[in-house]
């Protein structure tokens, strides 16, 4: 139901992805440097990327997903098909909360799908997921709960941004949606 607004959103996502990939090389980027994956700032809009992946996804057991943390640092991980992004994040020491451990009672595993084309490949959120997204900080049009995004071949190459945790910690230029 949010798809109707996606054209407007495209611009915003582009802006956001530009914002996030301005990598700050602090402690964490050094720490994770072997995984650091520099990407084209605005690579979101090409449908061809999706097609290529679909063609090349035969019997893949894992997919590649990039998490972009609150400081704009990136980490590329392999996620087994069928695993939730919350679980994958925890296995890879990515700072995603997940307070309710996937029981759909909070929104602390909120992730932002940085590429609209990947967002479209996900199943529509259920009412229960939307109820929790209602309460998420920094909600965007491509927000999802990490516990509800399950790895499947079409999602290979997806990039997920972790939103700023609170209103007070909001990253400049990353505008929380009023609610």
């Amino acid at each position, binding site marked *: 139901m949010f798809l109707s607004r996606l054209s407007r959103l495209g611009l915003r996502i582009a802006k956001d992805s530009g914002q996030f990939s301005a990598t700050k090389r*602090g402690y964490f980027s050094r720490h994770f440097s072997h995984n650091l994956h520099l990407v084209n700032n605005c690579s979101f809009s090409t449908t061809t990327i999706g097609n290529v992946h679909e063609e090349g996804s035969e019997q893949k057991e894992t997919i590649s997903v990039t998490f972009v943390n609150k*400081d704009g640092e990136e980490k590329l991980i392999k996620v087994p098909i069928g695993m939730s992004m919350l679980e994958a994040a925890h296995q890879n020491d990515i700072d995603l909360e997940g*307070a309710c451990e996937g*029981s759909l009672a*909070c929104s602390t595993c909120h992730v932002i799908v940085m590429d609209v084309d990947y967002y479209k490949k996900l199943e529509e959120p259920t009412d229960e997921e939307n*109820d929790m997204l209602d309460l998420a900080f920094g909600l965007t049009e491509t927000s999802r709960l990490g516990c509800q995004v399950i790895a499947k071949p079409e999602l290979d190459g997806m990039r997920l941004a972790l939103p700023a945790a609170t209103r*007070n910690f909001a990253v400049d230029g990353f505008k929380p949606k009023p*609610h």
Partner: protein
Amino acid sequence: MGQLLLHGWKLISRGFSSLTPHPLRVCIVGSGPAGFYTAEKMLKALDGAEVDILDRLPTPFGLVRSGVAPDHPETKLSHLPETWKQIVVNQFSRVAANERCSFFGNVNLGTTVSLSDLCKMYDAVVLAYGAESDRYLGVPGEDLGGIYSAREFVWWYNGHPDCSNVSPDLKNTDTAVVLGQGNVALDVARILLRPINELETTDIAEHALTSLRESTIRKVYLVGRRGPVQAACTAKELREILGIKDLHVCIQKADLLTSAADEEELKKGRIQRRVYELFSKAATSHQQHDIVGQRELHFMFFRKPDRFLPSESGNTVSGVRLEKTCLKENGASGKQVAVGTGQFEDLKCGLVLKSVGYKSVPVDGLPFDEYRGVVPNMKGRVLSLDQAEHAIVEKGLYVTGWLKRGPTGIIATNLYCAEETVASILEDFKNGLLTPSSGSPKPGRQGLLQVLENKNARFVPFSGWEKIDTKERMEGELRNKPRKKITTWEELLLAVDG
């Protein structure tokens, strides 16, 4: 930016902890979500932190135990063996099991131990004791029998030892009026309307179950000053009550008409939009309305209580006089506020539950904003005013949860709230503000134990709670429910000895 700093704090504090001659001694008052998340974050962030959690009750977990409705659907997710409530309790119990963490139940701030005592004994004191009182409506007749705050009613059905004798009379009337339309209002209405067999397998207090089994209440009115666009509930809770089996839901279609200002609010607010959609759907959906003794839920919008009407005896409530309202835009805030129209109507009822907000209560020596009902703070640092009315930071004193931001949000909101307060503590620690510049280090836990001993005050350690827990579960098992709550102070303390 903020996050970068936060990481910086973590690093520096880790460096510090290996250098500090004595641990950072932290006392948290209140063991609900705000308190436990603070303890968890504190212990994780600082290896040298020693955390004591105080609670005035012998039982921990605050509103997770006495606030969360017992009948929330067990969102049965196939891959999870446990409910959300149990998951949270397990997480908090793991925190309590940390060797650097101790629980002191049955210790009351203000009577057992004073705030100034705590500040003398600990490097940092974090107040997380929530909101244990109620906002007052301030209309005539508010003290009549049969009128309760939603908090009292919730504590009663959840077996809080302070409200085990509230005993609302559910047998003298067929109508209850709930003032307010937030999630707590929906909770209490749902408990009154839900078929009893659906409550029997929950951990609802036994006395409440008995009373609800005999209840003659068939109609519940949920009264709101404003319209369906401004209702304070969230979609999850609204869907839950609308989904009660065989419930007849009444919403006036005329109330669903929206003004331009309403449309603007709907455009901006995702929650409002989804809540309004649910109201619209419920108003238009076909409902069976010929079941004998069917229960009814009436949403009454655009009404505010003017006074409570006494029964013939003069002691109990027999109805509420409501004034119709309309919405006016408030220039300053841009929000729409309800104003009276001078038209009144009486609604007969034998039970009134006021659900217009919880309120925090200050303790001696604590700065408090009476108007907002919170402790003035800067990212969790308690602020007071000096003689020139300038805000100054109360060194070593912090606040988190409802006492810090007001009684709103869900359990997980406290996680972010705790994160912010803990970040402030770490920053102050890093800047040397929490370590005494001269003299001996603060005694922490030893000091507290000494005070308790001097006062001959008996505290309940976490192992004491575990005894209560075991007893409750065992007795619950016999009745095919998760637990049978112990609901009086005497029995709770007896179970600790057990």
